[in-house]
């Protein structure tokens, strides 16, 4: 490894786009949105603010996915391996939160916004985990 000083930098040490920052930012926006929605419960929260936060989160998430898809050389098999299990875990977690809101009679637009926030939550965290893991993986290690 270190003997080959003229060899290209290992994949793990190459610079990558700020994908984890974007997905964490997306998580931050929907967490703030969730706090606003929860703090108004059982009344209806100001939906414009919550929607704006949801859109901001979704834009960051889509931006992260866009940047991710543009990476050429990447440990994709490691990425998808980690992503699918993390997704399963966070879909279960998001499902439990959704269950609690349904149990609390949340309906209509508020429920739709919460559900979409949970979708952003349940996808942004697995992408962050899978990207962080795959960026340090060797291309041939799987």
């Amino acid at each position: 490894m270190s003997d080959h000083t003229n060899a290209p930098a290992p994949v793990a040490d190459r610079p990558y786009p700020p994908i984890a920052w974007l997905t964490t930012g997306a998580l931050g926006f929907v967490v703030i949105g969730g706090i606003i929605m929860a703090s108004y419960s059982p009344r209806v929260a100001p939906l414009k603010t919550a929607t704006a936060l949801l859109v901001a989160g979704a834009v960051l998430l889509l931006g992260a996915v866009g940047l991710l898809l543009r990476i050429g050389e990447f440990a994709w098999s490691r990425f998808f391996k980690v992503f699918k299990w993390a997704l399963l875990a966070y879909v279960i977690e998001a499902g439990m939160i959704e269950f609690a809101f349904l149990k609390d009679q949340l309906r209509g637009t508020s429920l739709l916004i919460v559900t979409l926030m949970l979708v952003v939550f349940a996808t942004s965290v697995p992408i962050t985990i899978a990207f962080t893991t795959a960026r340090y993986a060797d291309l041939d290690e799987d």
Partner: protein
Amino acid sequence: MTDTAHVSTQGGYEGPPVDRPRIQVVPLKGLPVAAVGLAIVVFAIASNNKWALIFSHVVGGGLWTGIDLFVGLVIGPILGRLSIPARAEFSARFMPKMVLIMPTIVTMNLASGFQIARKLGNLTTGSPNHAWLIASFCVVGGMVVVALGILEPANIAVIHEMNKKVPSGERIHRLMNRFIYTAGMLGVMQVATLVIMTRVASR
């Protein structure tokens, strides 16, 4: 070292890789325990049973706060002073357990806590506890972003790095530093949670 990694301390190669078992990222033996924890939360919410809700909230919250404080303020600084191979050896045994324990107890705590707040009327603006609960949401929100956005990905990346034939000590060091600092932050934030929750409970 027997079953842990042969770590290259500067990211370079130090010798032939040691034949060692792979670290399980998620300890499968712990899954039934996590499932029981989650089943308790589902039962508590579905039945709206006050005891079940409080049990789930107190068990989840007590463990979450205790573990965060202990890991962030006791284990973290100790880890920071260990050699890289020692950190790696500790992480190989410690991180997989955290991957399973933390999401389970956090879910137990938060899901039941929200239901209790609703049931006791603490979420209504007229409640003297309303402002404290909003403060608690903000603290928890901060912890969620730090834990899920920074700490947990670093944990899992460390485990995967350890499973390589020759793990990079420099990379483990970098990822472990992330763990140590964020765990410290979470520990400090848990102090705020303790203040808020004892305040709410004593009103």
